């Protein structure tokens, strides 16, 4: 797996080389861009702090267990293994939380198990919905997000069903 890890430096180098080839003052451009990056960070830092704090509170309140319990019956009807539910609920809420749960599942049931594979596919196929919406909409000053949240959550549900289906299709 060494080759894969080189991709990022390779892409960076390729862009720099292309820039040099096109006569761009690479150093100046880089500094200009990095400065813009810093400004963007300033813009979104308040949103991130608020979101992380809110999610930390959610985790501490034990609300996750209640939601998982509520979802266990419909999950069984859709033949979704209940072991993936905690991670599935966490995924749109917290990326690091979801990865921690994924690690847990792989440790407990095995990374190549039915449950391990489904969780891996689910984790790789969706983003942390709340963060993304919060940052994108928050940075542009949008308060009325309209259909964004419902559409994303429906897509998350779809992803769960699809993850189970695709693992069944490819592996069992």
């Amino acid at each position, binding site marked *: 797996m060494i080759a894969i890890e080189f991709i990022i430096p390779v892409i960076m180098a390729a862009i720099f080389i*292309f820039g040099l080839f096109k006569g761009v003052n690479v150093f100046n451009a880089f500094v200009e861009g990095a400065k813009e990056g810093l400004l963007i960070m300033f813009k979104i830092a308040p949103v991130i702090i608020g979101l992380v704090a809110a999610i930390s509170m959610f985790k501490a309140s034990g609300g996750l267990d209640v939601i998982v319990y509520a979802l266990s019956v419909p999950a069984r009807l859709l033949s979704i293994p209940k072991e993936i539910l905690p991670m599935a609920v966490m995924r749109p809420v917290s990326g690091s939380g979801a990865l921690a749960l994924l690690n847990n599942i792989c440790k407990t049931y095995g990374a190549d198990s039915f449950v391990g594979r489904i969780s*891996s596919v689910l984790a790789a196929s969706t983003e942390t919905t709340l963060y993304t919406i919060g940052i994108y909409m928050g940075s542009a000053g949008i308060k*009325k997000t309209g259909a964004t949240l419902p559409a994303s959550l*429906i897509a998350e549900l779809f992803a769960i069903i699809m993850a189970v289906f695709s693992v069944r299709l490819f592996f069992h």
Partner: protein
Amino acid sequence: MSGLILFSVIFGLINGQGSAVSKAVVDGAGEGITLCISMAGIICLWTGVMKVGEKSGLMDLFSKFLKPVTRLLFPKLKEGSEAHKYICMNMAANFFGLGNAATPFGIKAMSALAKQAGEKGKATRDMVIFTVLNTASIQFIPTTIAAIRSANGSKAPFEILPAVWMTSVLTAVCGVIVAIILCGRMNKNDCD
């Protein structure tokens, strides 16, 4: 976000986790700023690199390449506008699994779209579709997930690739279709 906080506070109190929730506020805020600091490094690095790409005409190349896709998803979007440029770079970065490069472009794209928008503070259809697209990550190579699998003894961490491609693409399609349906009014850029 306020809904989440309200739910956590009320539920936490009912659940007897009041003190845990209080602690979580402080811890969470600290976590948040730490996250920002660590994010800042990699994001600045990538925005710097991407500026080189922008000045060397690489971004325009991607814009041309992605025109058919953007024409389909954002029919009201003017090709060659700032918003279009940033949307294309965001899509390209996401595809190559460069989430930290994609985010700044996504934010810039949203600002550019907001400038074009009618009602201030309200998401237009383009914004909704763009954001939903970003919540469904279409990653070519899910390196982080593979690393976790490998650390837990997987014999073939990347074997899930076809399943991931299938799931993520279909999820993105589902999200966009639902967003379009919920937004209604195909001929305007409003989203209700």
